Structures are given as structure tokens and as C-alpha cells.
């Protein structure tokens, strides 16, 4: 059933966007038409799930990124350097031409002291300091994941550390890639496009249209069930999960085509409703994630 739209050419092309863009960028770098970018990846107030998700990318994958597309200047989970040496690399990048990818929200309470991402020259560096210092200087800022894009889980009620989205702290445009986590394709495709042609076309909320233009509900393989009013009354039924509280109808992103974990499956394909993780307002405004007292 999940292969319902498999023969649609339009959908096939969409599923290849990221890989085509990454191949183009790598080819252009090989021919010296464009320069390899410098990439700084900040893990701010969040779970670091986006960098883990990125490592899980397949065609394009992380190796394409780190060896052929960019000089990966800084990411605290992946780099060999640590302590002051690592922080030297981070702040040493200021003045060079770099792209900033930030995951996690920014904790703002008590001058950001709730989230210290390292020490430099003997002083603690907060997520707030880092995002402000680097965000103003970067060629492009990409907010990776829902927390960075709109606050997400880090900013969920009661938000004790005053978490805020990256955009709210910077006086410039931030490209937003919401999703909990962000799909590796969304990030790699956006980065490749940015290296090749500059900022991609964005919607009113700052999301690249090439990945975030369709509602999940509009391309969901279970849509025929919705149209016929055939609704699941409990988890496990392979029909439309609207009555259980599916958020596919308010979530704009392309999961039904792209799928996850090496393009294998996705929540609705695994019989759980969409919880709107790539939508502004997640998680508070997407609750309840599941509801059993609606259907007759």
C-alpha cells in the first residue's frame, strides 16, 4: 500500500532532489566551478538528534558531505579536537566564509547560563553567545530541526530555561528545516543548493519550498481511506488515522515520498499517526498525539 504512488514521475523526481543536488555540487567543486564550503554545526539546547539523523543519511550520505562538499570545521560530537583546541577552531572561523548550521533551541534565561557549550580562554561559552557571535557573521544560517526552527521540544511548556528559536535571536534571514529530527536529505539538499546557487526559494515561514511545500495529507498513501471515510479506531489498523488525531493534514513536508532510515518507512507506514513534528507549534500544539475517544 505504501507504494501506491510509485509510478508517478513527479513523485519520483521529488524523491531524488537531494541526491541530484549533492551530486551536482560535488561535480562543480571537482571542476573548481564553486568552492568547497566551510561548515560549522552548533549543537545548542536540544538532544543532538539532528546530527545523529544526518549520520544516518543514505544517498546522499554523510561521507559525501564531509569529504567532498564542505570542510567540516566544527561539530562538538564529531570532531577530533576537544576543549580549548576545539573552541579555537570554532571562533577562529569568524572572518572566514562559512555556513552555520544550528540544531537545538537557544536557552535565553539567566543570560543563557542553562546551556554552556564549552569554555574558551577560561570563560564559559553559552549557546546564546555562540549563536549570536557566529550567526551574525555566517554567509548563511540554517536552523536544523524543530527546536532550532521554532523552539520545539526544548521550548515546550513550561519552558523553564527560556528556550527560543534561532531566528528570534538574529537580525537576519534564517533558513528553517523543521522536523524532529531533520531528514538528512532536507539538510544535504538545502546545503548543496546553497553552495551551488545561493539561498533556495523559501515559503513565508522560511522553509525551502523544494521539501516543505506539500501537506503530508495531500500525498499520503492512506488518503483514499480518508476520502471514503474509512477510519482506524485503534493503532495497527491500516486505514486513515484521522480520528486518532493524525496531524498529516496540517503538516507541510514530504515524508510520504522520502521516508526515513534509508528511505524505508515512515510513521504512517508503520501504523502510527503523524504527530506534526515538522510543524510550528510542535509539540504543545500538536497534542494529543493519539486519541481513543473520538471514533464511534
Amino acid at each position, binding site marked *: 500500500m505504501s507504494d501506491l504512488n510509485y509510478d508517478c514521475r513527479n513523485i519520483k523526481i521529488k524523491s531524488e532532489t537531494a541526491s541530484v543536488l549533492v551530486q551536482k555540487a560535488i561535480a562543480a567543486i571537482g571542476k573548481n566551478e564553486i568552492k568547497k564550503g566551510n561548515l560549522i554545526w552548533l549543537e545548542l539546547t536540544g538532544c543532538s538528534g539532528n546530527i545523529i539523523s544526518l549520520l544516518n543519511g543514505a544517498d546522499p550520505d554523510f561521507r559525501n558531505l564531509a569529504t567532498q562538499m564542505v570542510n567540516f570545521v566544527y561539530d562538538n560530537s564529531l570532531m577530533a579536537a576537544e576543549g580549548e583546541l576545539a573552541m579555537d577552531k570554532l571562533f577562529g572561523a569568524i572572518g572566514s566564509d562559512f555556513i552555520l548550521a544550528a540544531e537545538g533551541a537557544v536557552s535565553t534565561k539567566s543570560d543563557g547560563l542553562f546551556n554552556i557549550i564549552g569554555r574558551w580562554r577560561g570563560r564559559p561559552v553559552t549557546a546564546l553567545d555562540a549563536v549570536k557571535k557566529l550567526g551574525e557573521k555566517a554567509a548563511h544560517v540554517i536552523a536544523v530541526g524543530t527546536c532550532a526552527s521554532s523552539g520545539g521540544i526544548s521550548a515546550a511548556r513550561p519552558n523553564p530555561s527560556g528556550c527560543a528559536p534561532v531566528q528570534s535571536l538574529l537580525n537576519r534571514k534564517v533558513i528553517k528545516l523543521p522536523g524532529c529530527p531533520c531528514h538528512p536529505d532536507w539538510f544535504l539538499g538545502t546545503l548543496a543548493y546553497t553552495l551551488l546557487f545561493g539561498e533556495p526559494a523559501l515559503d513565508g515561514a522560511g522553509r525551502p519550498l523544494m521539501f516543505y511545500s506539500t501537506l503530508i*495529507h495531500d500525498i499520503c498513501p492512506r488518503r483514499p481511506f480518508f476520502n471514503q*471515510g474509512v477510519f482506524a479506531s485503534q493503532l495497527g489498523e491500516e486505514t486513515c488515522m*484521522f480520528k*486518532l*488525531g493524525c496531524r498529516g*493534514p*496540517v503538516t507541510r513536508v514530504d515524508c510520504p515520498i522520502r521516508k526515513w532510515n534509508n528511505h524505508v518507512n515512515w510513521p504512517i507506514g508503520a501504523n502510527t499517526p503523524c504527530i506534526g513534528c515538522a510543524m510550528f*507549534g510542535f509539540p504543545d500544539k500538536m497534542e494529543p498525539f493519539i*486519541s481513543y475517544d*473520538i471514533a464511534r
Partner: protein
Amino acid sequence: MNEREIIINLIKNNISEMQETIDSLYISCNSCTKNMLLNRLRRSVANLSMLVQGFESGQHSAAFNGTENPQQNPAGAFTLAELSKYNGRDGNPAYVAVNGTVYDVTDNAAWGAATHFGLTAGRDLTGEFASCHAGQPVLNRLKVVGKMADERLEL
């Protein structure tokens, strides 16, 4: 004319208006005009679905005609307390009120499990609507099921 004939007449008018709109859509190449015409189509569809409901018996149309509880509920108006029963739970329909009109969101995809961006059905959401959807053509896609009673008059 009896009520049935009136409704059939209205439906016919609606259909011919829709046909005209579709014809105009074919010849207009300006996207602004197209949007306007599409909006008109949506309005006609909403009207049609309301009229179809006029034929349907049962709970909803009884409330609409005001026959369910004539004393408390003249002209099919809902009090806040009545509205709260239509919260979408346990098989009840899901209604929300905006600007004095009561809409049915039971089958609206954006209202999964009768909830929508932290809002629940069975309530007057005029303020929330204004802060989220002002100027968007959202309401004309919804079925109208009645009006809100002016509860100040009943005091």
C-alpha cells in the same frame, strides 16, 4: 412552495452559478481573478452542502431547525453550554463557533481527533480564529450548522 421545493430551487440556482463560475475560470488568465472565482466556487460548495443538510434528518438538522429544544433554543441557536456537548468525543459531532456562527469540523482533516493547534471543539473560538486565520478563506469550506444564541438576552 413548501420547504422541500424551496431547497430544491436554491440548489438549482447554486448549481447554475457554479457552472457560470467554471466557465469564467476557463477564460480568465489572471491569477487574481482566478482566486476570486475559486473563492466563489468554494462559497457555492459550502452553500450546497448546507442545503443538502436541510434534507438530512437526525440530530444536526433538528438542532438547526430548532426543533430539538424549542423553548431554550429558538431559531436553532446554540448556547455555550449546548455547544460544549459537540466536542467530538465519543462519537459526538465536533462544532466550533466563530463570530456567532456554528461550524461543523467533524470531518475537516485539519481537525484530527477534534483538536487543532491546541484548540478543542465545542467552544467559541472567535478570538483564536481572528489571531490565526484573519483574512484566510477557511470558514467558507465548513458546513454551517446554526447560530450562537445571544445569551445576554436570556438573563
